[in-house]
Protein backbone atom coordinates (compact mmCIF):
# COMPACT_ATOMS: atom_id res chain seq x y z
CA UNK A 1 0.00 0.00 0.00
CA UNK A 2 1.35 3.37 -0.96
CA UNK A 3 0.05 5.91 1.59
CA UNK A 4 1.21 5.63 5.20
CA UNK A 5 -1.46 4.46 7.67
CA UNK A 6 -4.01 7.00 8.85
CA UNK A 7 -7.30 7.05 10.71
CA UNK A 8 -10.29 7.53 8.44
CA UNK A 9 -13.42 9.44 9.39
CA UNK A 10 -16.38 9.93 7.05
CA UNK A 11 -17.99 13.15 8.30
CA UNK A 12 -21.76 13.52 7.99
CA UNK A 13 -21.92 17.28 8.59
CA UNK A 14 -19.68 20.33 8.43
CA UNK A 15 -19.93 20.59 12.21
CA UNK A 16 -18.73 17.00 12.65
CA UNK A 17 -15.86 17.60 10.20
CA UNK A 18 -14.74 20.70 12.06
CA UNK A 19 -14.98 18.85 15.38
CA UNK A 20 -12.73 16.10 14.05
CA UNK A 21 -10.22 18.63 12.69
CA UNK A 22 -10.11 20.32 16.11
CA UNK A 23 -9.74 16.96 17.85
CA UNK A 24 -6.62 16.13 15.78
CA UNK A 25 -5.16 19.61 16.36
CA UNK A 26 -3.75 20.18 12.91
CA UNK A 27 -2.67 16.58 12.32
CA UNK A 28 -5.74 15.75 10.17
CA UNK A 29 -6.37 16.67 6.54
CA UNK A 30 -9.70 17.23 4.83
CA UNK A 31 -10.36 14.77 2.00
CA UNK A 32 -12.60 16.28 -0.67
CA UNK A 33 -11.88 15.31 -4.29
CA UNK A 34 -8.49 13.93 -3.23
CA UNK A 35 -6.95 14.69 -6.61
CA UNK A 36 -4.02 16.58 -5.07
CA UNK A 37 -4.00 15.06 -1.57
CA UNK A 38 -3.97 11.36 -2.49
CA UNK A 39 -0.94 11.61 -4.83
CA UNK A 40 1.16 13.44 -2.20
CA UNK A 41 0.10 10.78 0.32
CA UNK A 42 1.07 8.03 -2.13
CA UNK A 43 4.51 9.64 -2.41
CA UNK A 44 4.46 9.92 1.39
CA UNK A 45 5.22 13.60 1.08
CA UNK A 46 2.14 13.98 3.29
CA UNK A 47 1.50 11.57 6.18
CA UNK A 48 -1.52 12.97 8.02
CA UNK A 49 -2.58 11.16 11.19
CA UNK A 50 -6.17 11.23 9.98
CA UNK A 51 -8.32 12.02 6.98
CA UNK A 52 -11.68 13.71 7.48
CA UNK A 53 -13.66 12.70 4.40
CA UNK A 54 -16.22 15.42 3.64
CA UNK A 55 -17.63 13.69 0.55
CA UNK A 56 -20.74 12.51 2.45
CA UNK A 57 -21.48 16.05 3.71
CA UNK A 58 -24.46 16.92 1.50
CA UNK A 59 -24.83 20.41 2.99
CA UNK A 60 -21.58 21.34 1.16
CA UNK A 61 -22.88 20.14 -2.22
CA UNK A 62 -25.09 22.89 -3.64
CA UNK A 63 -25.14 25.30 -6.53
CA UNK A 64 -27.58 28.19 -6.20
CA UNK A 65 -28.33 31.51 -7.82
CA UNK A 66 -28.21 34.53 -5.55
CA UNK A 67 -31.01 37.08 -5.76
CA UNK A 68 -28.45 39.72 -6.76
CA UNK A 69 -27.47 37.72 -9.86
CA UNK A 70 -24.41 35.91 -8.53
CA UNK A 71 -23.77 32.30 -7.60
CA UNK A 72 -23.32 30.33 -4.39
CA UNK A 73 -21.09 27.32 -4.93
CA UNK A 74 -20.87 24.68 -2.22
CA UNK A 75 -17.28 23.64 -1.53
CA UNK A 76 -18.04 20.04 -2.51
CA UNK A 77 -19.37 20.84 -5.98
CA UNK A 78 -17.37 18.83 -8.53
CA UNK A 79 -15.58 20.72 -11.27
CA UNK A 80 -17.39 18.65 -13.92
CA UNK A 81 -20.72 19.84 -12.55
CA UNK A 82 -19.60 23.48 -12.75
CA UNK A 83 -18.36 22.84 -16.27
CA UNK A 84 -21.74 21.47 -17.38
CA UNK A 85 -24.15 23.72 -15.49
CA UNK A 86 -25.70 26.42 -17.71
CA UNK A 87 -26.02 28.76 -14.69
CA UNK A 88 -22.23 28.91 -14.41
CA UNK A 89 -21.91 29.70 -18.11
CA UNK A 90 -24.55 32.45 -17.80
CA UNK A 91 -23.54 33.99 -14.48
CA UNK A 92 -19.80 33.35 -14.37
CA UNK A 93 -18.66 32.86 -17.99
CA UNK A 94 -15.05 33.60 -17.05
CA UNK A 95 -15.11 30.63 -14.65
CA UNK A 96 -16.84 28.47 -17.29
CA UNK A 97 -14.08 29.36 -19.78
CA UNK A 98 -11.34 28.34 -17.34
CA UNK A 99 -12.82 25.01 -16.21
CA UNK A 100 -11.91 22.94 -19.30
CA UNK A 101 -8.28 23.86 -18.62
CA UNK A 102 -8.35 22.30 -15.13
CA UNK A 103 -6.42 19.04 -15.46
CA UNK A 104 -8.21 16.23 -17.29
CA UNK A 105 -11.82 14.98 -17.44
CA UNK A 106 -11.15 12.13 -14.99
CA UNK A 107 -9.73 14.66 -12.50
CA UNK A 108 -12.62 17.11 -12.90
CA UNK A 109 -15.10 14.30 -12.21
CA UNK A 110 -13.75 14.09 -8.65
CA UNK A 111 -12.04 17.42 -8.01
CA UNK A 112 -14.07 19.98 -6.08
CA UNK A 113 -14.30 23.77 -6.21
CA UNK A 114 -13.54 24.13 -2.51
CA UNK A 115 -10.73 21.59 -2.53
CA UNK A 116 -8.89 23.37 -5.30
CA UNK A 117 -9.19 26.75 -3.56
CA UNK A 118 -8.25 25.41 -0.11
CA UNK A 119 -5.24 23.56 -1.58
CA UNK A 120 -4.01 26.92 -2.98
CA UNK A 121 -1.68 25.64 -5.66
CA UNK A 122 -0.45 28.82 -7.38
CA UNK A 123 -0.52 26.99 -10.74
CA UNK A 124 -4.18 26.01 -10.35
CA UNK A 125 -7.01 27.83 -12.10
CA UNK A 126 -9.63 28.00 -9.32
CA UNK A 127 -7.63 30.17 -6.87
CA UNK A 128 -6.86 32.62 -9.70
CA UNK A 129 -10.52 32.69 -10.73
CA UNK A 130 -11.69 33.18 -7.14
CA UNK A 131 -9.52 36.31 -6.89
CA UNK A 132 -10.39 37.55 -10.39
CA UNK A 133 -14.12 37.18 -9.75
CA UNK A 134 -14.00 38.84 -6.29
CA UNK A 135 -15.31 35.69 -4.63
CA UNK A 136 -16.15 35.62 -0.94
CA UNK A 137 -15.32 32.45 0.95
CA UNK A 138 -17.30 31.09 3.88
CA UNK A 139 -15.09 29.33 6.41
CA UNK A 140 -16.58 27.19 9.14
CA UNK A 141 -14.73 26.58 12.39
CA UNK A 142 -15.45 25.45 15.95
CA UNK A 143 -16.44 29.01 16.94
CA UNK A 144 -18.81 29.47 14.01
CA UNK A 145 -18.37 30.85 10.54
CA UNK A 146 -16.63 33.83 8.95
CA UNK A 147 -16.43 35.29 5.48
CA UNK A 148 -13.07 36.07 3.84
CA UNK A 149 -12.50 37.84 0.53
CA UNK A 150 -10.62 35.61 -1.93
CA UNK A 151 -8.11 38.46 -2.29
CA UNK A 152 -7.29 38.12 1.42
CA UNK A 153 -7.40 34.31 1.48
CA UNK A 154 -4.20 33.27 -0.32
CA UNK A 155 -1.09 33.85 1.80
CA UNK A 156 1.49 32.05 -0.33
CA UNK A 157 2.54 28.64 -1.57
CA UNK A 158 -0.22 26.24 -0.41
CA UNK A 159 -0.86 28.66 2.48
CA UNK A 160 -4.26 30.24 3.14
CA UNK A 161 -6.30 32.02 5.79
CA UNK A 162 -7.80 28.65 6.83
CA UNK A 163 -7.00 27.65 10.40
CA UNK A 164 -6.17 23.94 10.90
CA UNK A 165 -9.64 23.36 12.39
CA UNK A 166 -11.51 25.36 9.74
CA UNK A 167 -13.30 24.09 6.67
CA UNK A 168 -13.99 26.01 3.45
CA UNK A 169 -17.76 25.62 3.05
CA UNK A 170 -18.87 27.94 0.29
CA UNK A 171 -17.69 30.18 -2.52
CA UNK A 172 -19.94 33.13 -3.30
CA UNK A 173 -19.56 34.93 -6.61
CA UNK A 174 -20.99 38.45 -6.90
CA UNK A 175 -23.11 39.32 -9.95
CA UNK A 176 -21.28 40.18 -13.14
CA UNK A 177 -21.28 43.92 -13.91
CA UNK A 178 -23.45 44.67 -16.92
CA UNK A 179 -21.50 45.10 -20.14
CA UNK A 180 -18.41 43.39 -18.85
CA UNK A 181 -16.05 41.57 -21.21
CA UNK A 182 -13.78 38.80 -20.02
CA UNK A 183 -11.16 36.31 -21.19
CA UNK A 184 -9.21 33.42 -19.71
CA UNK A 185 -6.04 32.30 -21.48
CA UNK A 186 -3.26 29.95 -20.50
CA UNK A 187 -0.31 28.29 -22.15
CA UNK A 188 0.49 24.69 -21.21
CA UNK A 189 2.73 22.17 -22.91
CA UNK A 190 -0.25 19.82 -23.25
CA UNK A 191 -3.94 20.57 -22.76
CA UNK A 192 -4.79 19.98 -19.09
CA UNK A 193 -1.22 20.17 -17.79
CA UNK A 194 -0.29 22.89 -15.32
CA UNK A 195 0.01 26.13 -17.22
CA UNK A 196 3.32 27.91 -17.65
CA UNK A 197 1.35 31.15 -17.34
CA UNK A 198 -2.37 31.87 -17.27
CA UNK A 199 -4.37 35.08 -17.06
CA UNK A 200 -7.96 36.01 -16.21
CA UNK A 201 -8.96 39.41 -17.58
CA UNK A 202 -12.11 41.48 -16.97
CA UNK A 203 -12.91 44.70 -18.77
CA UNK A 204 -15.86 47.08 -18.50
CA UNK A 205 -16.42 49.78 -21.12
CA UNK A 206 -18.20 53.01 -20.20
CA UNK A 207 -20.93 54.69 -22.23
CA UNK A 208 -18.20 56.78 -23.89
CA UNK A 209 -16.62 53.58 -25.21
CA UNK A 210 -13.56 53.99 -22.99
CA UNK A 211 -12.34 51.51 -20.36
CA UNK A 212 -14.24 52.06 -17.12
CA UNK A 213 -12.71 49.22 -15.10
CA UNK A 214 -10.21 46.38 -15.62
CA UNK A 215 -8.81 43.42 -13.68
CA UNK A 216 -5.82 41.22 -14.48
CA UNK A 217 -5.08 38.15 -12.34
CA UNK A 218 -2.42 35.56 -13.14
CA UNK A 219 -1.61 31.97 -12.26
CA UNK A 220 1.75 30.17 -12.23
CA UNK A 221 3.78 33.38 -11.87
CA UNK A 222 4.21 33.53 -8.09
CA UNK A 223 3.44 31.85 -4.77
CA UNK A 224 -0.26 32.71 -5.02
CA UNK A 225 -2.67 34.23 -7.58
CA UNK A 226 -0.94 37.45 -8.66
CA UNK A 227 -2.67 40.66 -9.67
CA UNK A 228 -1.39 43.39 -11.96
CA UNK A 229 -3.26 46.29 -10.36
CA UNK A 230 -1.23 49.11 -11.89
CA UNK A 231 -1.49 47.68 -15.40
CA UNK A 232 -5.24 47.34 -14.94
CA UNK A 233 -5.54 50.87 -13.53
CA UNK A 234 -3.52 52.27 -16.45
CA UNK A 235 -6.31 51.22 -18.79
CA UNK A 236 -9.06 53.22 -17.08
CA UNK A 237 -10.12 56.15 -19.25
CA UNK A 238 -8.20 54.83 -22.27
CA UNK A 239 -9.72 53.89 -25.60
CA UNK A 240 -9.65 50.09 -25.83
CA UNK A 241 -7.23 49.04 -28.55
CA UNK A 242 -3.79 47.68 -29.41
CA UNK A 243 -1.84 50.70 -28.11
CA UNK A 244 -3.42 50.78 -24.64
CA UNK A 245 -3.34 46.99 -24.33
CA UNK A 246 0.32 46.74 -25.38
CA UNK A 247 1.25 49.41 -22.85
CA UNK A 248 -0.66 47.67 -20.06
CA UNK A 249 0.84 44.30 -21.00
CA UNK A 250 4.35 45.78 -20.95
CA UNK A 251 3.72 47.37 -17.56
CA UNK A 252 2.38 44.10 -16.11
CA UNK A 253 5.26 42.02 -17.47
CA UNK A 254 8.10 44.42 -16.69
CA UNK A 255 7.10 46.00 -13.37
CA UNK A 256 4.38 43.99 -11.64
CA UNK A 257 4.63 40.29 -12.39
CA UNK A 258 7.97 38.84 -11.35
CA UNK A 259 7.87 35.11 -12.09
CA UNK A 260 10.49 32.60 -10.98
CA UNK A 261 11.58 30.03 -13.51
CA UNK A 262 10.82 26.34 -13.10
CA UNK A 263 11.59 23.16 -15.03
CA UNK A 264 8.84 23.92 -17.54
CA UNK A 265 9.65 27.55 -18.30
CA UNK A 266 12.42 30.01 -17.50
CA UNK A 267 11.62 33.27 -15.71
CA UNK A 268 12.35 35.15 -18.93
CA UNK A 269 9.95 32.98 -20.92
CA UNK A 270 7.23 33.37 -18.29
CA UNK A 271 7.66 37.12 -18.42
CA UNK A 272 7.34 36.97 -22.20
CA UNK A 273 4.18 34.86 -21.90
CA UNK A 274 2.78 37.30 -19.33
CA UNK A 275 3.14 40.17 -21.77
CA UNK A 276 1.75 38.28 -24.77
CA UNK A 277 -1.17 36.69 -22.92
CA UNK A 278 -2.12 39.98 -21.24
CA UNK A 279 -2.46 41.77 -24.58
CA UNK A 280 -4.38 38.86 -26.10
CA UNK A 281 -6.72 38.52 -23.11
CA UNK A 282 -7.47 42.26 -23.04
CA UNK A 283 -8.20 42.20 -26.77
CA UNK A 284 -10.61 39.26 -26.40
CA UNK A 285 -12.25 40.85 -23.34
CA UNK A 286 -12.72 44.16 -25.21
CA UNK A 287 -14.38 42.37 -28.14
CA UNK A 288 -16.82 40.72 -25.72
CA UNK A 289 -17.42 43.99 -23.85
CA UNK A 290 -18.06 45.75 -27.17
CA UNK A 291 -20.62 43.11 -28.08
CA UNK A 292 -22.34 43.47 -24.72
CA UNK A 293 -22.57 47.25 -24.87
CA UNK A 294 -23.42 47.41 -28.60
Amino acid at each position, binding site marked *: *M*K*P*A*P*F*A*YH*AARSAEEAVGLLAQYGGEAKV*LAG*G*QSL*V*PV*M*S*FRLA*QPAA*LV*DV*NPVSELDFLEDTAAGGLRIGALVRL*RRLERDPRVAARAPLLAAAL*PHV*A*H*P*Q*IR*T*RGTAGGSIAHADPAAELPCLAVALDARLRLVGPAGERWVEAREFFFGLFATALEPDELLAEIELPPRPPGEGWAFLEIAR*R*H*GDYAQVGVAARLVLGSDGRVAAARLVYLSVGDAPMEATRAAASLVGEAPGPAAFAAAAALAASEEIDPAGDIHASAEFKRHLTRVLTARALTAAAVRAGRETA
Partner: protein
Amino acid sequence: MREPETIAPPRHPVRLEVNGARHQREVEPRLLLSDFLRHELGLTGTHVGCEHGVCGACTVLLDGEPVRSCLLLAVQADGRRVTTVEGLAPADAAGADGARSPHGGPLHPLQEAFRETHGLQCGFCTPGFLMTLVAFLAENPDPSEEEIRHALSGNLCRCTGYQNIVAAALRAAEMLRAADGDATPRPPIGTAETPGA
Protein backbone atom coordinates in the same frame (compact mmCIF):
# COMPACT_ATOMS: atom_id res chain seq x y z
CA MET B 1 9.19 10.33 12.39
CA ARG B 2 6.24 8.24 13.23
CA GLU B 3 6.60 4.98 15.23
CA PRO B 4 6.28 1.80 13.15
CA GLU B 5 2.81 0.26 13.26
CA THR B 6 2.84 -2.56 15.76
CA ILE B 7 -0.87 -3.26 15.93
CA ALA B 8 -3.21 -4.13 13.11
CA PRO B 9 -4.79 -0.93 11.83
CA PRO B 10 -8.57 -0.70 12.02
CA ARG B 11 -10.43 -1.92 8.96
CA HIS B 12 -13.53 -0.39 7.42
CA PRO B 13 -16.36 -2.13 5.62
CA VAL B 14 -16.78 -1.55 1.88
CA ARG B 15 -19.90 -2.67 0.07
CA LEU B 16 -19.99 -1.87 -3.61
CA GLU B 17 -21.13 -3.12 -6.97
CA VAL B 18 -18.49 -3.86 -9.59
CA ASN B 19 -19.60 -4.72 -13.12
CA GLY B 20 -23.03 -5.65 -11.80
CA ALA B 21 -21.78 -7.98 -9.02
CA ARG B 22 -22.04 -7.02 -5.36
CA HIS B 23 -18.95 -7.31 -3.16
CA GLN B 24 -18.25 -6.74 0.49
CA ARG B 25 -14.83 -6.53 2.14
CA GLU B 26 -13.17 -5.10 5.24
CA VAL B 27 -10.19 -2.97 4.21
CA GLU B 28 -7.58 -0.63 5.59
CA PRO B 29 -8.55 2.96 4.73
CA ARG B 30 -5.25 3.51 2.90
CA LEU B 31 -6.06 0.82 0.32
CA LEU B 32 -6.50 2.55 -3.04
CA LEU B 33 -9.47 1.59 -5.21
CA SER B 34 -7.08 0.46 -7.97
CA ASP B 35 -5.39 -2.02 -5.60
CA PHE B 36 -8.76 -3.09 -4.21
CA LEU B 37 -9.98 -3.99 -7.69
CA ARG B 38 -6.79 -5.86 -8.57
CA HIS B 39 -5.87 -7.59 -5.30
CA GLU B 40 -9.15 -8.01 -3.46
CA LEU B 41 -11.39 -8.71 -6.44
CA GLY B 42 -8.82 -10.10 -8.90
CA LEU B 43 -9.93 -7.69 -11.62
CA THR B 44 -6.48 -7.12 -13.10
CA GLY B 45 -7.78 -5.47 -16.25
CA THR B 46 -7.47 -2.13 -14.43
CA HIS B 47 -3.77 -1.33 -14.86
CA VAL B 48 -1.65 0.75 -12.52
CA GLY B 49 1.00 2.84 -14.25
CA CYS B 50 2.17 5.93 -12.41
CA GLU B 51 -0.05 5.52 -9.31
CA HIS B 52 -0.17 9.27 -8.79
CA GLY B 53 -2.86 10.38 -11.16
CA VAL B 54 -0.90 11.24 -14.28
CA CYS B 55 -1.05 8.31 -16.71
CA GLY B 56 -4.77 7.44 -16.72
CA ALA B 57 -4.18 3.67 -17.08
CA CYS B 58 -6.29 2.96 -13.96
CA THR B 59 -9.37 4.88 -15.17
CA VAL B 60 -12.66 3.21 -14.19
CA LEU B 61 -16.25 4.44 -14.09
CA LEU B 62 -17.69 5.47 -10.73
CA ASP B 63 -21.47 5.68 -11.10
CA GLY B 64 -20.90 6.04 -14.83
CA GLU B 65 -18.28 8.81 -14.66
CA PRO B 66 -14.59 8.31 -15.42
CA VAL B 67 -12.25 8.58 -12.42
CA ARG B 68 -8.67 7.62 -11.69
CA SER B 69 -8.94 4.62 -9.37
CA CYS B 70 -5.44 5.29 -7.95
CA LEU B 71 -6.69 8.62 -6.55
CA LEU B 72 -9.65 7.14 -4.69
CA LEU B 73 -9.60 5.19 -1.47
CA ALA B 74 -11.49 1.92 -1.65
CA VAL B 75 -13.53 3.03 1.38
CA GLN B 76 -14.77 5.98 -0.66
CA ALA B 77 -16.39 3.59 -3.15
CA ASP B 78 -18.68 2.28 -0.38
CA GLY B 79 -22.23 2.19 -1.70
CA ARG B 80 -21.14 3.08 -5.24
CA ARG B 81 -21.22 1.35 -8.60
CA VAL B 82 -17.88 0.74 -10.34
CA THR B 83 -17.34 -0.39 -13.92
CA THR B 84 -13.95 -1.72 -14.99
CA VAL B 85 -12.73 -2.76 -18.42
CA GLU B 86 -13.97 -6.28 -17.64
CA GLY B 87 -17.48 -4.80 -17.54
CA LEU B 88 -17.31 -3.76 -21.20
CA ALA B 89 -17.43 -7.36 -22.44
CA PRO B 90 -19.14 -9.40 -19.73
CA ALA B 91 -19.01 -13.17 -20.20
CA ASP B 92 -22.77 -13.52 -19.96
CA ALA B 93 -23.57 -10.94 -22.65
CA ALA B 94 -25.23 -12.24 -25.78
CA GLY B 95 -23.62 -11.19 -29.02
CA ALA B 96 -22.75 -11.93 -32.58
CA ASP B 97 -20.04 -14.35 -33.68
CA GLY B 98 -17.32 -11.70 -33.71
CA ALA B 99 -14.18 -11.49 -31.58
CA ARG B 100 -14.62 -12.20 -27.86
CA SER B 101 -12.86 -10.92 -24.78
CA PRO B 102 -10.65 -13.22 -22.64
CA HIS B 103 -13.67 -13.47 -20.36
CA GLY B 104 -15.77 -14.88 -23.14
CA GLY B 105 -18.09 -11.95 -23.85
CA PRO B 106 -18.45 -10.31 -27.23
CA LEU B 107 -16.26 -7.22 -27.56
CA HIS B 108 -17.79 -3.82 -26.88
CA PRO B 109 -17.98 -1.72 -30.08
CA LEU B 110 -15.19 0.45 -28.66
CA GLN B 111 -12.96 -2.62 -28.25
CA GLU B 112 -13.90 -3.72 -31.78
CA ALA B 113 -12.88 -0.29 -33.06
CA PHE B 114 -9.50 -0.44 -31.25
CA ARG B 115 -8.90 -3.88 -32.75
CA GLU B 116 -9.92 -2.81 -36.23
CA THR B 117 -7.82 0.37 -36.37
CA HIS B 118 -4.78 -1.00 -34.49
CA GLY B 119 -5.49 1.38 -31.61
CA LEU B 120 -3.13 -0.49 -29.29
CA GLN B 121 0.37 -1.87 -29.40
CA CYS B 122 1.56 -3.20 -26.03
CA GLY B 123 -1.93 -2.71 -24.57
CA PHE B 124 -0.89 -1.51 -21.13
CA CYS B 125 -2.65 1.85 -21.40
CA THR B 126 -5.66 0.47 -23.30
CA PRO B 127 -8.06 -0.21 -20.39
CA GLY B 128 -7.73 3.42 -19.29
CA PHE B 129 -8.31 4.72 -22.81
CA LEU B 130 -11.37 2.47 -23.19
CA MET B 131 -12.96 3.57 -19.91
CA THR B 132 -12.28 7.24 -20.62
CA LEU B 133 -13.76 6.94 -24.10
CA VAL B 134 -16.82 4.91 -23.17
CA ALA B 135 -17.95 7.77 -20.89
CA PHE B 136 -16.87 10.46 -23.35
CA LEU B 137 -18.74 8.93 -26.31
CA ALA B 138 -21.89 8.47 -24.23
CA GLU B 139 -21.87 12.23 -23.66
CA ASN B 140 -20.50 13.21 -27.10
CA PRO B 141 -21.80 10.74 -29.68
CA ASP B 142 -20.40 12.67 -32.67
CA PRO B 143 -17.10 14.24 -31.54
CA SER B 144 -14.50 16.00 -33.66
CA GLU B 145 -10.91 14.79 -33.71
CA GLU B 146 -9.90 17.79 -31.58
CA GLU B 147 -12.55 17.04 -28.97
CA ILE B 148 -11.31 13.46 -28.79
CA ARG B 149 -7.72 14.62 -28.29
CA HIS B 150 -8.82 16.90 -25.44
CA ALA B 151 -10.85 14.10 -23.87
CA LEU B 152 -7.80 11.82 -24.03
CA SER B 153 -5.32 14.39 -22.71
CA GLY B 154 -5.26 12.60 -19.33
CA ASN B 155 -4.28 9.22 -20.75
CA LEU B 156 -0.69 8.42 -21.69
CA CYS B 157 0.36 5.89 -24.33
CA ARG B 158 4.12 5.27 -24.46
CA CYS B 159 4.00 3.24 -27.69
CA THR B 160 3.21 6.63 -29.35
CA GLY B 161 -0.04 5.20 -30.60
CA TYR B 162 -2.26 8.30 -30.30
CA GLN B 163 -2.94 8.54 -34.03
CA ASN B 164 -4.64 5.16 -34.13
CA ILE B 165 -6.31 5.65 -30.75
CA VAL B 166 -8.00 8.77 -32.11
CA ALA B 167 -8.95 6.83 -35.25
CA ALA B 168 -10.40 4.09 -33.02
CA ALA B 169 -12.46 6.65 -31.09
CA LEU B 170 -13.85 8.10 -34.33
CA ARG B 171 -14.64 4.60 -35.62
CA ALA B 172 -16.28 3.61 -32.32
CA ALA B 173 -18.43 6.75 -32.35
CA GLU B 174 -19.60 5.76 -35.81
CA MET B 175 -20.35 2.19 -34.71
CA LEU B 176 -22.17 3.32 -31.57
CA ARG B 177 -24.29 5.82 -33.52
CA ALA B 178 -25.23 3.06 -35.97
CA ALA B 179 -26.10 0.75 -33.04
CA ASP B 180 -28.26 3.49 -31.50
CA GLY B 181 -30.37 3.39 -34.65
CA ASP B 182 -31.20 -0.26 -33.85
CA ALA B 183 -34.42 -1.27 -32.19
CA THR B 184 -32.61 -2.19 -28.95
CA PRO B 185 -29.94 0.42 -28.21
CA ARG B 186 -27.11 -0.58 -25.90
CA PRO B 187 -27.81 0.61 -22.33
CA PRO B 188 -25.32 3.13 -20.94
CA ILE B 189 -22.49 1.42 -19.09
CA GLY B 190 -22.41 1.69 -15.31
CA THR B 191 -24.80 4.61 -15.00
CA ALA B 192 -26.24 5.02 -11.54
CA GLU B 193 -29.97 4.65 -11.11
CA THR B 194 -29.85 7.62 -8.78
CA PRO B 195 -27.27 10.05 -10.15
CA GLY B 196 -25.25 11.88 -7.55
CA ALA B 197 -26.35 9.50 -4.79
